[in-house]
């Protein structure tokens, strides 16, 4: 009985899809010979495909429902096999060692094309980690993150153009300017939460882009700024391949720095205050936390990383224009943390690699990139809304051994 019902449902779905895709998949007007081609085979493919997919879809849904039941029964959250293996500290160490070795030999083994892609992915890791401070930790949805990225990139480009300031000097300046912009954005939106904050930050991102696009005297408009010098290496001229490797190691360094700093912040007095703020703003203030300050700190620290990566981006591409800092860019970085797993460092890394590397290596699908992207996010939201990597936030684990002496003193 149920089987027949399911078959009928799938049949209906496949007919519906054949009907929907009929105009684009079946009919083709050949304008040269002025004839209409009927590609009936396509229709059969669509029909069969959607028939099979509807079964897979239903299977996944039912699996998800039983999963939800498991969760209700207070079972520990389902972990990826990968995560279970990594629970073992020995495995963790050897995996880290393997990754480190791979990362070091990477530029000597692969072509500069590969190195460039990897550098880009690593830049997005840092961007994701930065955005994660406000979104994942402080719970403030920021949809204009690309604006801070732009601030970093343009501060290097313009400072270099006007004053000939070098990469290494521009790096901290770009980061500081982006942090300053974070605070400037923060001041008027301190009272906003959730959707309202999202809209205002979205607007802010667009304002920055539009200013860059239209204020020709300042930013050279849509044509952008070219001939931005690559970073120097103690005054030695590097050829193209060497520069790729150099930038690669530089970004690896910044990535490690970001992971280190953000981990430290997470487990600090300030990190705790952010979590409390995300949980309950009124209670958080009543416990003596200066929320204004906590929010501005989060925004500044988050924007700082975007500024830093912005400077590197300008140096890497040697050309920037406002088209690199659209809303799509902000959405991309946000997707990285949503898909990877909100609030976790490992999740952001996984998300960045998936979202940046997959499209590069699946060039064949590049026409459907945005389509696949959208589908992936929809599927994620349905089947794994907590992200690929789900680690419940690491809570402070109190153990008597560490603190026994202190307890006995009181």
């Amino acid at each position: 009985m149920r089987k027949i019902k399911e078959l009928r449902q799938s049949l209906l779905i496949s007919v519906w899809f054949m009907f929907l895709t009929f105009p684009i998949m079946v009919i083709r007007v050949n304008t040269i010979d002025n004839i209409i081609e009927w590609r009936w085979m396509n229709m059969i493919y669509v029909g069969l495909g959607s028939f099979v997919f509807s079964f897979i879809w239903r299977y996944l849904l039912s699996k998800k429902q039983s999963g939800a039941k498991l969760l209700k029964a207070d079972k520990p959250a389902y972990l990826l096999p990968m995560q279970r293996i990594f629970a073992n500290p020995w495995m963790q160490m050897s995996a880290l060692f393997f990754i480190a070795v791979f990362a070091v030999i990477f530029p000597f083994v692969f072509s500069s094309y590969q190195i460039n892609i990897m550098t880009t992915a690593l830049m997005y890791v840092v961007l994701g980690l930065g955005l994660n401070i406000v979104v994942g930790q402080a719970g403030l949805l920021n949809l204009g993150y690309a604006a801070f990225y732009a601030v970093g990139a343009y501060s290097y480009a313009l400072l270099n153009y006007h004053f000939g300031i070098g990469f290494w000097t521009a790096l901290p300046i770009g980061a500081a300017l982006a942090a300053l912009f974070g605070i400037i954005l923060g001041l008027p939106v301190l009272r906003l939460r959730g959707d309202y904050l999202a809209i205002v930050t979205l607007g802010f991102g667009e304002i920055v882009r539009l200013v860059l696009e239209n204020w020709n005297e300042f930013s050279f408009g849509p044509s952008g700024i070219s001939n931005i010098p690559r970073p120097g290496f103690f005054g030695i001229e590097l050829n193209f391949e060497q520069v790729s490797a150099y930038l690669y190691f530089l970004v690896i360094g910044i990535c490690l720095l970001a992971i280190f700093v953000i981990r430290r912040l997470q487990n600090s007095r300030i990190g705790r205050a952010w979590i409390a703020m995300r949980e309950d703003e009124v209670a958080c203030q009543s416990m003596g936390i200066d929320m204004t300050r906590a929010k501005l700190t989060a925004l500044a620290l988050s924007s700082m990383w975007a500024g830093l990566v912005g400077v590197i981006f300008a140096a890497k591409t040697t050309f920037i224009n406002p088209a690199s800092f659209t809303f799509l860019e902000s959405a991309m970085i946000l997707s990285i943390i949503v898909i990877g797993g909100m609030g976790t460092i490992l999740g952001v890394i996984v998300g960045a690699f998936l979202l940046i590397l997959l499209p590069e290596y699946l060039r064949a699908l590049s026409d459907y990139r945005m389509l696949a992207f959208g589908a992936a996010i929809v599927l994620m939201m349905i089947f794994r809304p907590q992200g690929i990597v789900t680690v419940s936030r690491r809570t402070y684990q109190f153990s008597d051994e560490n603190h026994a002496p202190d307890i006995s003193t009181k």
Partner: protein
Amino acid sequence: MPQTFPQNKGSVLDIVNLTMNFGGLRAIDAVNLHVKQWEIVALIGPNGAGKTTIFNCITGLYKPTAGDIFIQPPGRKRKRVTGMKIHKITKRGMARTFQNIRIFSNMTALENVMIGRHCRTKAGVWEAVLKNKRTRKEEKDIVSQSYNILAKVGLTQAVNELAKNLPYGAQRRLEIARAMATEPFLLLLDEPAAGMNPYETKELDELILRIREEERISILMIEHDMKLVMSVSDRIYVMDYGEKIAEGSPSEIRENHVVIKAYLGEEFDA
């Protein structure tokens, strides 16, 4: 009994002619109230009398329409705190709990109390990143102090438990622990016994007296449980429709006709 405690040490909180309007509604009408050092004061009254609104004015959540709030922490100068920012008031030494529990659900019991230590500790961004000796010591102290406070309210079993998984009575005690972690001179409890069973209420009774004893602080408490109010309070204020209708010792309040009328309403008239 409470009376054995040293009294008349001078007041730590003075509320003068406090008035609060919400649009056309006058939620508090020229209320005067004071709390002395080491005193346990109860604030009672029917639903909607304006008790929580007074707490919200004291702790800075609301800006009063008129009137003044002065504090005088033991050994310090008298200070006007009317309309001061919430976190600054907490830092000056008044901490509260909420009528509708507002713990940080996804943090552990210990972490909840650690948040309370925030305003008494210093580590900023730099210290967090560098994590030098001083910062490590501060973190360690935060943990052990928080644990000690949890021990005082009897929650050591739940130290690593997520706050949302705690039973109701434990959540209420966790809120008290969190407030105590801010080292207040005055603890404001908004219906601490609400939703507790008689056994838990009995424990709460002891806890409140013990806090006063051990921490040497004052307590201002809103409570509907008359047994608890009568047994722990030194003095009681009664409010109705935003006005203070009576004040006095528990025995005086028990006998007061205005109070009985406010509580029993028409039934009493009939």
